[in-house]
């Protein structure tokens, strides 16, 4: 939850269906931009715990993408995530 405070409510341009991820139990918006060889992400969720998870997944995306189940297990989040939420994590990682 402390990680969630790193995200502040974005401007409404992000919060459109184009950036909304399916399969997430709570609404998640994610936009990836590549400019001058630098990748940046804008992300938001109405749920605080999901915002914290977004920060963690973006920050550790390489490890998480290698094996999301192992990653969630390493960070001891598996037990907090229902299967539908795990699907949401997979959807986020695919979008990263």
């Amino acid at each position, binding site marked *: *939850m*402390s*990680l969630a*405070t*790193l*995200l*502040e*409510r*974005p401007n409404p341009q*992000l919060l459109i269906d184009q950036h909304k991820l399916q399969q997430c*139990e*709570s*609404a998640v918006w994610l936009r990836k931009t*590549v400019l001058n*060889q*630098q*990748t*940046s*992400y*804008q*992300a*938001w969720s*109405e*749920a*605080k*715990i*999901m915002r*914290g998870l977004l*920060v*963690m997944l*973006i*920050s*550790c*995306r*390489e*490890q998480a993408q290698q094996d999301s189940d192992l990653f969630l297990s*390493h*960070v*001891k*989040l598996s*037990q*907090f995530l229902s299967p539908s939420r795990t699907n949401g994590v997979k959807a986020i990682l695919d979008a990263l």
Partner: protein
Amino acid sequence: MKSTTPFNSTKIRRDFPILSLRVQGKSLIYFDNAATTQKPRAVIDKLSQFYKVANANVHRGSHSLSNTATSQFELARKTVAAFINAPNVHEVIWCKGTTEAINLVANSLGSYLLNNSDQQPATILVSTSEHHANIVPWQLIAAATHSQVIAIPLTKDMQIDQAEYCRLLTLHRPKIVALAHVSNALGHINPIRQMIVKAKEHGAITLIDGAQAVGHFSVDVQQLDCDFYCFSAHKCFGPTGIGVLWGKQALLNKMPPWQGGGEMIEQVSFSGTRFNQLPFKFEAGTPPIADAIALGTAIDYLTGMDRAAAEEHEQRLFHRLYNGCTAISGVQVLSSPDNNVGIVSFTVSGLHHQDIAILLDQNGIAVRSGHHCAMPLMQALGIDGTLRASISFYNTEQEVDFFLSALQEVIAVLNNDFIEDTVIIEDKATIEDKDTLVTENTQRDKQQYPASDVVIGT
């Protein structure tokens, strides 16, 4: 007349092995009974016993085991018929659950009733608070038959608007009226008896989704005088994968089969196939035999207790829960305290229902968060979801009190943005590539990652 056992909630809990489980190191408090109910030992044992000593396919009377299985299977059907006071046992049709029962009626009755040459599209009337299972099957058949599904609006207190219902009946003269006996998201018991009478006055066929009703109170389909009634076993202490469609014989006989296969035929040839009689006409393939038999056991268990006393106990718990929730600052309860089976659906100002559910789970409390498969209701409420605490007769006052206390704590935690989340911070150190991690220093992180942007150099 069957004798009943006096209701004793402490004793009853011992019948449900799962209730002694610990979740997240805490005693389980199961307040997700509207999603599925727990199973008494008698049901669990019956499933196991069937596979140990009686497993065989049914209606293949060439050996003793098959005869035993068939007898138990058909006895369960009789038990269901008596449970809902169906006039004829062959009007009880096994389905996978309420969803399949509604799909069966929508497809079979729909293709028979809605395919007509009327210039005006036929109408199917549902309420805004229906579960998706009582909306989408009708939308599918409506699209296939150029019919329309019209929703009855709700009043401000989230009850079906009876004046609007009457107006829509007169305006559209619907061929089918499909209503939930009890709203799954709010727990409201709809006045279906009078709604059925009005539907009949306008010539409509009625289907009642009883999924949330049968686990809480007795249902009498003859007294209701609906045309179809359906429910799922797993919401009334039976197994998953089995449910019931009851329908009036005259209608069922007119309806074409929905699915084809074994069991549902009388004679098959390439020049033409004749179908079996009721109920087998609608039961293609090998049915979930053990589950049907165990549903019979669940019903025996339920009818073997003093249901009036169980209902009183549930109502006491519900009002304690309802009053407790409404007294918590920031909590908005959407369910009505009247005519409610025991569901408190609520939101909390400024907080997301999913966050609250996750933290309640850390206290061993199981509740549901989300739209509860009732998106049109959520749209009417102007929200994307609620928390839903739903009780059953095996819950206790102590559980309600613990829930209320935990809910207040969770709200306080979530309202405090600067709380240290030790789990996440400790775990970060276990990741090898620490440089890519967000560090504990919140201030530094805020400078590094302003607003919603997280910039990663590549």
